[in-house]
């Protein structure tokens, strides 16, 4: 009871990176609260899944294994999760801010009448005093996220309702094994007792899942473009620089929304989070949602015609100039000095 729960996203028997990252975050939250870390695996053919999960410090693994539970459908997984949560009364429930988590989370939170905060960039434990109600809460989950177009960062709390639910994007947290032989307990459930015909009403007719081809997250150098790049043609310059440097190309949301670059390259709160050793930001103003996805880069070079662009404040080097002019010069200088 009142423990920290993580919903595991599972595709073909493999636990998603985002879920492992949340296990690590969940472990640290559980430690601070002196509670257990529990994980929920819902799917089919989950034999041996505990071996992948326990090393992240999971104390209890709840498994619901049934043919109807794979691939994911909203109604089946939400039914299992709702029933399990009613029984286990989690203090905190975390899931990935993915196609799945952002579909499942709100449905579960509505059924349980609990608060849910989407796309958190940080989760902390802290106190809260409600002066009006004269109530003091010792350890609530601070759900921290940029809001309002990234002009503010809001700390959200759920004082009264449980579980305190949050979704977090892939790559925002770091996964870490606690101990290879960490011992947890497995609890099996027969999902058939919860599922009704209505829960099976939405059927998958066809499904094409692609392995993500773009691998910005693990690239040690990222060349990213923003709205200031100005066109798809100018983005080709960034691809050229990236290929010379052995880098991946990323983009800000403004660049993606403007059609300069594919959505799967978006970096920031609503994209991926990267931690490369070098981040080259071209024509990116530096809105907080974008910065949230790259601020842990070891070194940042900004290329911007506006010397007062916010990004320059976090840049190690701010090149004031036009990217159309600067990028070819960088390519030329790189080629001239290596060989």
């Amino acid at each position, binding site marked *: 009871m009142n423990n920290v729960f993580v919903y595991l996203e599972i595709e073909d028997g493999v636990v998603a990176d985002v879920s492992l990252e949340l296990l690590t975050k969940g472990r640290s939250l559980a430690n601070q609260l002196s509670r257990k870390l529990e994980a929920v695996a819902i799917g089919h053919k989950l034999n041996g899944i505990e071996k992948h999960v326990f090393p992240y410090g999971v104390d209890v693994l709840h498994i619901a294994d049934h043919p109807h539970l794979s691939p994911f459908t*909203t*109604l089946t997984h939400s039914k299992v999760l709702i029933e399990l949560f009613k029984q286990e009364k989690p203090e905190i429930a975390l899931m990935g801010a993915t196609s799945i988590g952002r*579909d499942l*989370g*709100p449905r579960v*939170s*509505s059924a349980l*009448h*609990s*608060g*849910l905060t*989407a796309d958190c960039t940080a989760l902390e434990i802290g106190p809260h005093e409600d002066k009006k109600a004269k109530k003091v809460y010792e350890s609530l989950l601070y*759900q921290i996220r*940029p809001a*309002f*177009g*990234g*002009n*503010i960062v*809001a*700390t*959200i*709390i*759920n004082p*009264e*309702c449980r579980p305190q639910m949050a979704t977090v994007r892939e790559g925002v947290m770091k996964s870490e094994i606690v101990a290879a032989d960490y011992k947890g307990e497995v609890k099996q459930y027969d999902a058939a007792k919860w599922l009704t015909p209505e829960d099976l*009403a*939405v*059927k998958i*007719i*066809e*499904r094409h*899942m*692609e392995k*993500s081809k773009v691998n910005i997250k693990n690239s040690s150098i990222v060349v990213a473009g923003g709205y200031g790049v100005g066109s798809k043609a100018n983005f080709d310059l960034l691809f050229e620089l990236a290929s010379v*440097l052995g880098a991946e190309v990323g983009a800000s949301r*403004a660049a993606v*929304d403007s059609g300069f670059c594919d959505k799967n390259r978006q970096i920031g*709160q*609503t994209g991926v989070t990267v931690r490369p050793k*070098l981040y080259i930001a071209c024509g990116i103003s530096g809105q*907080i949602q974008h910065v949230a996805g790259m601020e842990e880069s070891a*070194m940042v*070079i900004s290329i911007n015609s506006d010397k007062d662009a*916010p990004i*320059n*404040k*976090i840049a*190690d*080097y*701010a*090149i*004031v100039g036009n990217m159309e002019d*600067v990028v070819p*010069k*960088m390519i030329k*200088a*790189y080629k001239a*000095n*290596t060989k």
Partner: protein
Amino acid sequence: MGLKIIVLAKQVPDTRNVGKDAMKADGTVNRAALPAIFNPEDLNALEQALRIKQRVKGSTVTLLTMGPGRASEVIREGLFRGADDGYLLTDRAFAGADTLATSYAISLAIKKLGKCDLILAGRQAIDGDTAQVGPQVAEKLGMPQITYAEEIVEVNSKKIVVKRRLERGVETVEGPLPCVVTVNSSAPVCRPRNARLLMKFKHAKTVTERQEANEDYLEMYHDRPYLNIQEITVNDIDADREQLGLAGSPTKVKKIQNIVFQAKDSKVLDATDEDIEGLMKELIANHTIG
């Protein structure tokens, strides 16, 4: 037989075009300086509704929005593009609602509008990016949800077939009606305003707006009932008031921080050949690149 379709739409501040005057001197957001727009993905949802209306004879499209009085703008915008009618869910009792309290009020308003076959909404609104209201409304109404719709492949009075755009692929699903479908920005953009409908509906107003404007065209609104945008207030829905507005919201905002970047010790370079060559040499020398 036609389908009764409800489109959920939200008026949002245009956070994509935040200008320099968007922040007040005290560092808070100056909402008045941001233009209010029809949430972009709700327009994608409206387009899907209008396509179904063309495909399935006898179908109707009703807009439902929750917000302050000025949100009636969203309804007019929808009427100009082909919606049949619209309702503004507005009351001080709804103010400060989080997604759950919002979904509760919207679900009750939908119940008040009577039986419907399909509820369409944008995947998420650009002011919060939460994508929660659609699924929460579905849960409150006990309907299935189909999120991230890119294309409605097929629909009749019993079932709907939807192509969904997921992060790592596409999925086609079939579900029963009634259900809630949320539409992605990758779906077709909404058709523009229609000149004839613009003329027809340009005077469409809520009662409150007519009172505020102090207009004396009673006859016109009597003769052309379609110009009346209906308001739904807390008294019109069968609500548990404790679940509404700020007080009925499980999530509370503890703190708002304005964004101030901590300035690093950054080196400012000009875009000269020498500066750039110098930088590249330095990066190669310290093995950052190369």
